[in-house]
């Protein structure tokens, strides 16, 4: 970069991109298909195993469940039979006893047959455990009642109605010895009103009562009665026995039907005959009927009762909430001539639950097996993938090595071709970009004075284009230059955070949206000659050997630069002469002409503005100073410099900054400095216009020096100082202040412009006006910053002063 502030961009022909052939595309598709198939096969295997295990578990579960149900049906049938047999063994003897007693009585009246029947009854009751009492009544209301007592004997009650009503109780002990003989005049009992009597009379055959609470024993039981008619069909006697059902209840209770199953005996109306509980009583009132199934407060029995009422007898499955309950109801009609039913209620899980449990266990074990298979398959697949990755990585590395080898071959070719320097660099950057799979590769050459890195060639692989000419100045990026001077490569994925590249990032990389960069210094015999920047190189396997490759490439580039820097003596003399001539021309002609234009434009506008305010320029000759060099430093925000850094003693950071700047200003040669608020105004001037360039140089040098001092302070304190600087060349006004000794205050004109430029400048930068640029662009590097309309100057180009050229 010489004078122009705009980087010169010289696009060269972009290489034609190669379109992949159809065959290659087909091969890639087939390869991807094979890879996908290879990776998905283990997964498919696991899925098949899972499906098979699930199917086997389902079939086994169903078979076991079916078998368990068959077994449970058989078991319930067996229980039905057992209960039936038990009932027969329990109820048949009392019936036989009844038949025999009836035969013995032969229709005789109670008074007539009482002694014989009593003896018979006592013997029979003693031998038939299910019978607890014997009743013998005739049509006249006479009554004989024999019942066990708690002394192991019998109590005999006799009601004799021949002479009025006489009730006697004869109580015997276990040895049949009469203990007491007593009358009970208060007894009003009439057998003809009892249900068993009336039932037998009305049915004219053996009659079974419902279960009820025995009046005398306070125990649940039932009575079976047998009537006796004469030849005319007239009722003569009714003989009955009381059967306690406690024993039957106890039997039902001890039946083990699954873990929660139970058996009951009910009649056709659903009234409970026997309940599986020792202490069960049908009712507290002897006259009350036994409860129905839906009256005992058991929801399962209530549902079962409803089920039976609707669907009738048989074996049913009752869905009760989440539970399935088997309800078996088999009639035992032949036994009692009444519609008695053995009701068995048992949860299905009592029989088939073990199937579910074992099914779950089997399923858990199967899942475990599947998981193990899946893990093993996954491990195999992972190893397969890893092996493929390793193979792919090896291929990638191989390709990268081949590409880099080719790059070296190309560069070596170019090195021996005398006329191919520029094309060789282009090919080198292209090859390097391909080898590193980088977005951009640039080769920079350091100027002889070591202050500027100029881009010799930059290849952007995304647009396949080359640019040249961009310059990086040492004053702009001191940290980068310092790092390169050490000869160390810079490898950073976050250029903005790396101190060495942060300035490069802000100025060059960030606009390109690049943060990953590898920079190799180009060094020959210990002297820095340039650098190669590889921007956004592909990392991973393709990055293997990146550093070595870049180092080697930098050595080749160093050789190239050395060869190029050694022209023939004649040519060298010509170049030097041409450069000297060009410099002289620039110094003597171009710069003053431009400066004159910008000064004239500003002066015209200033004069017009002053005239509008009734202040012609001629009248200000004494107070105005023309072409003064003005610099303004806008100091950091006070809140950031109010702290006391450790190396400043008790002084605030602001004190230290002002002190440091004061020292620099005193050395700079500027003749005026004023500190007001957060701004320092510097002015260098003489009345002699011819010295304006010298003052501008002085001010520009002072500004750079002050900027560098502030950056040093930033580095030393590890903080960010938000300072801005500006420089302008133009007219200022001077006023004398005080009398002893008088001092001068400079104001207006360029002071105001410089203040505005400083306020609008970027952080840590030096803004420059157009007049300053016109005067200083031969010696200093500037970047354009846009053109603005200022009321004070009219249209004015603005710049950022980067450093000295």
């Amino acid at each position: 970069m010489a004078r122009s502030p705009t980087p010169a961009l010289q696009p060269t022909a972009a290489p034609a991109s190669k379109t992949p052939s159809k065959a290659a595309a087909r091969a890639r598709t087939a390869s991807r298909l094979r890879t996908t198939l290879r990776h998905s096969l283990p997964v498919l295997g696991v899925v098949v195993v899972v499906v098979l295990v699930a199917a086997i578990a389902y079939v086994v579960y169903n078979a076991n469940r079916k078998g368990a149900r068959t077994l449970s049906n058989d078991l319930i049938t067996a229980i039905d039979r057992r209960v039936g047999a038990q009932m027969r063994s329990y109820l048949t003897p009392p019936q036989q006893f009844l038949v025999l007693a009836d035969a013995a009585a032969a229709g005789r009246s109670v008074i007539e047959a009482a002694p014989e029947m009593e003896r018979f009854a006592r013997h029979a009751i003693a031998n038939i455990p299910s019978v607890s009492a014997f009743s013998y009544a005739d049509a006249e209301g006479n009554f004989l009642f024999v019942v066990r007592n708690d002394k192991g004997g019998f109590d005999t009650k006799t009601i004799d109605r021949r002479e009025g009503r006489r009730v006697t109780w004869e109580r015997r002990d276990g040895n049949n010895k009469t203990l007491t003989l007593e009358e009970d005049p208060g007894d009003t009992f009439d057998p003809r009103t009892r249900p068993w009597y009336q039932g037998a009379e009305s049915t004219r055959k053996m009659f079974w009562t419902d279960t009820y609470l025995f009046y005398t024993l306070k125990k649940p039981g039932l009575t079976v009665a047998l009537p006796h008619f004469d030849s005319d069909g007239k009722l003569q006697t009714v003989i009955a026995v009381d059967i306690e059902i406690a024993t039957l209840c106890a039997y039902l209770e001890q039946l083990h039907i699954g873990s929660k199953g139970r058996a009951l005996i009910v009649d056709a109306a659903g009234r409970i005959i026997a309940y599986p509980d020792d202490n069960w009583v049908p009712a507290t009132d002897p006259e009350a009927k036994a409860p129905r199934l839906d009256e005992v407060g058991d929801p399962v029995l209530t549902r079962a009762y409803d089920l039976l009422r609707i669907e009738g007898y048989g074996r049913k499955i009752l869905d009760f909430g989440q539970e399935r309950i088997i309800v078996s109801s088999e009639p035992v009609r032949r036994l009692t001539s009444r519609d008695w039913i053995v009701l068995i209620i048992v949860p299905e899980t009592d029989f088939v639950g073990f199937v579910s449990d074992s099914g779950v266990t089997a399923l858990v074990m199967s899942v475990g097996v599947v998981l193990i298979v899946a893990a093993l398959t996954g491990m195999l697949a992972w190893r397969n993938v890893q092996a493929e990755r390793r193979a792919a990585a090896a291929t990638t590395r191989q390709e990268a090595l081949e590409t880099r080898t080719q790059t070296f071959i190309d560069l070596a070719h170019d090195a021996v071709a005398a006329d191919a320097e520029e094309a060789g660099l282009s090919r080198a950057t292209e090859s390097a970009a391909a080898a590193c799979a980088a977005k951009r590769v640039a080769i920079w050459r350091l100027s002889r004075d070591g202050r500027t890195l100029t881009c010799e060639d930059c290849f952007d692989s995304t647009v396949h284009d080359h640019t040249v000419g961009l310059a990086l100045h040492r004053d702009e990026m001191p940290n980068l230059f310092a790092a390169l001077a050490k000869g160390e490569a810079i490898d950073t994925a976050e250029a903005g955070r790396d101190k060495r590249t942060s300035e490069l990032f802000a100025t060059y990389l960030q606009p390109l949206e690049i943060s990953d960069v590898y920079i190799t210094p180009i060094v020959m015999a210990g002297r820095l000659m340039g650098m190669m920047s590889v921007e956004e190189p592909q990392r991973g396997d393709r990055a293997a050997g990146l550093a070595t490759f870049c180092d080697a490439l930098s050595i080749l580039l160093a050789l190239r630069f050395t060869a190029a820097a050694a022209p023939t003596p004649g040519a060298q003399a010509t170049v030097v002469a041409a450069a000297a001539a060009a410099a002289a021309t620039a110094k003597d002609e171009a710069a003053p002409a431009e400066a004159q234009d910008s000064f004239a434009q500003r002066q015209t506008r200033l004069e017009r503005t002053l005239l509008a305010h009734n202040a012609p320029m001629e009248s200000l000759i004494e107070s105005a100073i023309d072409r003064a060099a003005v610099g303004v430093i806008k100091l950091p925000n006070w809140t950031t410099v109010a702290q006391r850094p450790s190396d400043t003693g008790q002084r605030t950071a602001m004190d230290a900054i002002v002190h440091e700047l004061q020292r620099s200003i005193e050395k700079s040669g500027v003749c005026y400095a004023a500190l007001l608020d957060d701004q320092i105004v510097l002015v260098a001037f003489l009345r002699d216009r011819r010295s304006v360039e010298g003052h501008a140089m002085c001010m520009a040098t002072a500004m750079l020096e002050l900027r560098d001092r502030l950056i040093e302070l930033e580095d030393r304190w590890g903080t960010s100082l938000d300072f801005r600087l500006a420089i302008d060349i133009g007219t200022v006004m001077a006023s004398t202040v005080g009398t002893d000794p008088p001092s001068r205050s400079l104001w207006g004109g360029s002071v105001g412009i410089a203040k505005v430029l400083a306020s609008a400048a970027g952080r840590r930068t030096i803004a420059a006006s157009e007049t300053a640029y016109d005067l200083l662009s031969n010696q200093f590097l500037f970047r354009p910053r846009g053109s603005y309309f200022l009321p004070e100057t009219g249209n004015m180009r603005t710049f950022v002063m980067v450093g000295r050229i």
Partner: protein
Amino acid sequence: MAARPGRSVLSLQGVALADRQFSAHTARLDLELPHGEVALVQVEDEHDAALLVDLCLGLADPGAGEVRFLGIDWATHTPRERFHRRRRIGAVMQTDVWPSHMTVLESVLVARAYHFNQPRAEVIADATELARLFGLPGLPAGRRDATPMRALVRAACVRGFLGSPDLIVVQDQVLDQSSELAVPMAQAISAACDRGATVLWITASLATQAAQFVHTNQAFRLGDHGLIRVRRSR
């Protein structure tokens, strides 16, 4: 929301915001902006934000409801009347702002020159003052292609606030992402409110740094069915 018709600079009553890009619902908007107040509205979708701006500026008619600027419904105006009336509105936005055939400076000044009989020097002075507030030395003198984006963003702010408009509508996605402009924007809004202007700031997020410095009287979020009043945490 309770409507207070008659006293507002901008009033949206039952305005239907239809044809939304990311919502199947038609939002019903009710908004009253009195003199000197600042309202912040979070509209996440840029398309919806542009629709809302067009409604407020009378560039589009709502499907239902009415938008009143200074008490008069935009729908009652002819296009030319609307054009003249919009001289009292300043809009800060980045899309389709700068014509390619004139400089940014002229683009900023031309509206004032067309609508108002104000000396050019005064306009320039006002514009320069605003430009310096927003961190520019002056107004950019080049065309949009030759002007840095940083300067264009700030010039758009100058354009919106220039000339003491009664209503300032801010809908600037660049502004949402810029923290440098937070303080200048707050200062400009504060100054505008002090002289009685009303500001409607449509932002992609109420949490953006630029909006943090602004003292708002009302804050809303555009939901599926309309504006939802929200409380801002400061």
